[in-house]
C-alpha cells in the first residue's frame, strides 16, 4: 500500500500548477469564458506541448500511460483553477471512446490528432428522456445501402459548438433501454442534417443540443462492432466520472482555502469573522468534507487502475460520485454563506467555483443516482 505520488505524477502536478500561476488567474479565465470559442486555442496547443492531452492514453495507444491516478492528479489541479478548456469532452470522453473502440491505423491517427491538439471532440450520449441511464437510447441508426442514417435528438453535448467530430450514441436494434444494439459513430460536426443549437452552461462551458435529421454517413464511421458499444461507453464514462470528481475535489479545496482566508481578513463587530466559533466549526466541517471526498476519489481511481473485480470497480465509481456530490453541496453552499454578500457576486471567483462544482454534481449522474446505483450492485 502506497499513497505517495510517483515522480511523473509530481511533475505533472507541478506543470499544471506553474501554468495556472503564470497564465490562468480569474480575470484571464473570465476573458476566455466570454470569448467566442469559450476556450483558449493557444492554451489548448500549450496543453498538447506539455503532454497533458496524452495523459489519458496508454503508451501503446500513443499516450503517456493512461492511469486513472495520473488523470486525477492533473484534474484536481484543473479544478483548483476552474479551468474551462474542454479536456473532459475531448481527451477523456471522446479520446477514451476512440481508444476503447477504434482499431489499427485509424485509431492511431485519431488519437494522434487528440494528443497534438488538432482535433476537438464532443460526445452525444444524453437524451431528454434518458436522464443518467446510458442504455436509454432512442436515437436510431439504420443501415441503408451501405450507409448509416441517424435520426434523433441529443442534449447536453459538451463542446459540440467547437467540435470537429461528434461521437454519437445511437441504437441499431432493440428496445429503448436494451443494453444490446447500441453503437457509436464518429460523425463530422458539419455533416448534412446535423444541427447544433449552442448554448453556454452556467459554469461557462460551451454546450449544445444536437439534432440528427437523416444524417447519412458511411458505415465505416462506426467505432467497434455493431450494437456492442455500451460496455465501452460505460467504462469511459465511469473513468470520466472519477476524473470530474477529482476536478471537484480540487475546486472544493480552492473554495475552502478562499473561505478560510477571507474569514481571516473580513472584519465585523470589530474583529475578523474567523474568530467566531459559529463560523469556525462550519469551516472545520468543510475541511472534513474535502478530506472525505479526496479519499474516496483516490479509492475509486485505485480500484479502476488495479482491481480485477468489475463489480467492485463500478461500485467504487458510484461511491465516489455520490460522496463527492454531497461534499459539493455542503462545501459549495457554505463557501457562499460564509463569504456573505460578496460571495453572491459575479465578480468574485468563489461563485464561479460553486457553479462549476454544481455542474459536476449533475454530470454523469448526481448523488441520488449514484447512491441507488451503488445500492443496486450487491
Amino acid at each position, binding site marked *: 500500500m502506497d499513497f505517495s505520488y510517483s515522480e511523473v505524477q509530481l511533475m505533472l502536478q507541478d506543470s499544471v500548477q506553474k501554468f495556472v500561476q503564470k497564465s490562468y488567474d480569474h480575470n484571464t479565465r473570465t476573458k476566455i469564458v466570454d470569448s467566442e470559442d469559450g476556450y483558449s486555442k493557444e492554451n489548448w496547443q500549450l496543453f498538447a506541448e506539455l503532454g497533458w492531452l496524452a495523459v489519458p492514453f496508454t503508451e501503446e495507444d500513443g499516450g503517456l500511460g493512461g492511469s486513472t491516478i495520473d488523470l486525477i492528479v492533473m484534474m484536481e489541479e484543473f479544478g483548483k483553477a476552474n479551468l474551462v478548456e474542454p479536456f473532459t469532452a475531448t481527451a477523456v470522453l471522446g479520446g477514451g471512446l476512440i481508444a476503447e473502440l477504434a482499431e489499427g491505423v485509424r485509431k492511431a491517427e485519431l488519437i494522434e490528432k487528440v494528443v497534438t491538439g488538432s482535433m476537438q471532440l464532443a460526445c452525444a450520449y444524453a437524451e431528454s428522456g434518458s436522464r443518467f441511464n446510458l442504455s436509454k437510447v432512442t436515437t436510431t441508426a439504420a443501415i441503408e445501402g451501405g450507409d448509416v442514417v441517424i435520426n434523433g435528438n441529443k442534449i447536453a453535448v459538451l463542446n459540440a459548438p467547437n467540435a470537429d467530430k461528434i461521437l454519437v450514441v445511437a441504437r441499431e436494434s432493440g428496445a429503448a433501454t436494451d443494453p444490446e444494439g447500441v453503437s457509436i459513430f464518429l460523425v463530422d460536426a458539419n455533416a448534412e442534417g446535423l444541427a447544433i443549437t449552442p448554448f453556454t452552461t452556467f459554469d461557462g462551458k460551451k454546450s449544445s443540443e444536437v439534432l440528427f435529421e437523416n444524417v447519412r454517413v458511411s458505415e465505416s464511421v462506426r467505432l467497434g462492432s455493431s450494437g456492442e458499444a455500451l460496455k465501452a461507453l460505460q467504462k469511459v464514462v465511469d473513468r470520466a466520472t472519477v476524473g470530474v470528481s477529482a476536478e471537484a475535489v480540487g475546486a472544493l479545496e480552492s473554495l475552502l482555502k478562499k473561505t478560510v482566508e477571507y474569514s481571516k481578513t473580513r472584519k465585523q463587530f470589530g474583529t475578523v469573522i474567523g474568530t467566531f466559533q459559529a463560523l469556525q466549526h462550519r469551516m472545520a466541517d468543510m475541511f472534513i468534507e474535502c*478530506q472525505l471526498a479526496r*479519499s474516496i476519489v483516490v*479509492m475509486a*481511481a485505485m480500484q479502476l487502475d488495479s482491481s480485477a473485480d468489475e463489480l467492485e470497480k463500478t461500485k467504487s465509481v458510484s461511491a465516489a460520485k455520490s*460522496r463527492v456530490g454531497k461534499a459539493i453541496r455542503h462545501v459549495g453552499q457554505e463557501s457562499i454563506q460564509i463569504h456573505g454578500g460578496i460571495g453572491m457576486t459575479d465578480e468574485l471567483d468563489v461563485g464561479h467555483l460553486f457553479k462549476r462544482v454544481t455542474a459536476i454534481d449533475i454530470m454523469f449522474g448526481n448523488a441520488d443516482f449514484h447512491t441507488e446505483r451503488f445500492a443496486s450492485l450487491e
Partner: protein
Amino acid sequence: MNADFTAEDLVFQDEVRTFLQNEFPAEYREKIDANIRLSKEEIINWQKILYKKGWAAPSWPEEHGGTGWSQIQKHIFATEMGLIGAPEPVPFGLKMVAPVIMAYGNDEQKQRFLPDILESNVWWCQGYSEPNAGSDLASLKTAAVREGNHYIVNGTKTWNTYGQYADWIFCLVRTDNTVKKQEGISFLLIDMKSEGVSHKPIYLLDGHAEVNEIFFDDVKVPVENLIGEENKGWTYAKVLLTHERTSISGVPRGNGRLRTLKKIAAETDDGFGNSMMENQTFRNRLANIEIELKALEYVELRTLASISAGKAPGPESSILKIVGTELAQKIDEIFVDLAAYQSLPFVPEQFEDGFQGAPIGPGNSAAFALTYFNNRKASIYGGSNEIQRNIICKAVLGL
C-alpha cells in the same frame, strides 16, 4: 500509488483470520452480534487469549511485549477483529496508561506496572473528568498535597468507565494552584483499594451503569506512584490523547454492524409484503453509510501511510474521531428504525454481568434502542466532537 497488500501482508491477514475463527469464543460472538455486552470475566478471558498469542498490544514497542507489526499489519489486525466482532481490548491499561508509563515513567514503574497490563492481570480506569471539568479538562480540581513520602488526594472524578471493575486508576491531579491551570497538574497512579477511595454507579439512558463517580477522601498515595515530574501531567495527557485518536475511526466495526443490519433487514417484513432489504429508501440509507465508511477508511489509510512515512499523527486524526463516532451513531439509528416496535422493551438487565436470559425480539432488537441511547456518548467522550473541531480550526486552518 496503490492500495494493494503485499504477499507478506496477505499471509498475515490469513493468519489473523484463522486465529480469530478458531480462538475468539463462539458464544462471545453470538453475544456481540446480539448487541449484548461481555462480562468482566469474558473480557479478561478474551484479552488473555490475545496475550497468549502475543497479540495483546500491537501498538507497544517490542521490548515491552509489542508485536513489531507495521502500520499496515496493525490495520489488517484491527480490520479482521472488527469484521468478526471481536472487541478491542479495554483501552485504559493497554492503550492509555501504558504509553505514558513507557514514555515518562522510571524503570521501576515500568517493571512494576507494564507486565500486568500486558497480561490483563490488572484492570485500569481513567481519572480525568470531574463534575466541573469536562471538555475544559485543565480546570480540574482534585488536589494532591505532598506530605512526606505521600500525596494526600481529595476530590471527585467522574465518567469512570468500568470503574466498578478497576484495580487501579490513573489520575490527573492538581499539585499547584498558583500557576496557569495547565501547569499545576500531575499524573498520579492510585490503587483503588486504598483507604478513602469509593465509587458510586451512574445509571445512563440504557439503564446500565457502565460509568461511575469516584471519590477520594484523604487518600494516601506513595510518591513513587507519580509519573514523570510533578506539574508536567498535562503535557503527558495531551500526548496520550493524540495517540488515542488514531485508532478510533471504527470502520471495521461499522462494516461488521452493517453486515448484521443487512442480515436482519432481509428477514424483516416491511409490512407491505417485501423485506426491508427490498425497500428502496432503506437500502439507500444503508448504501450511504457504506459509502461513508469507504471514504473514512481511505482517510484512515492515508493517515496511516503518512505515519508510516515517519510523520506524527497530526490533528487530521480529529477527523477520524468526529466522522467515526457520528457514523457509528447513524448506524445505531438505523438499528432502531429497522426494529421499530420491537425496539421498545426496556430490559437493562441484559447488560449486567452474567445475564442468562433469552434474546428479546428478532436479533435481540430490545438492545438496539439502548445501544443507540448509550452511544450518544461517543461524540462527547475523548474530547467532544466540538473540541475536535476546535483542534482542526487551530492546527489545520490556522483560525
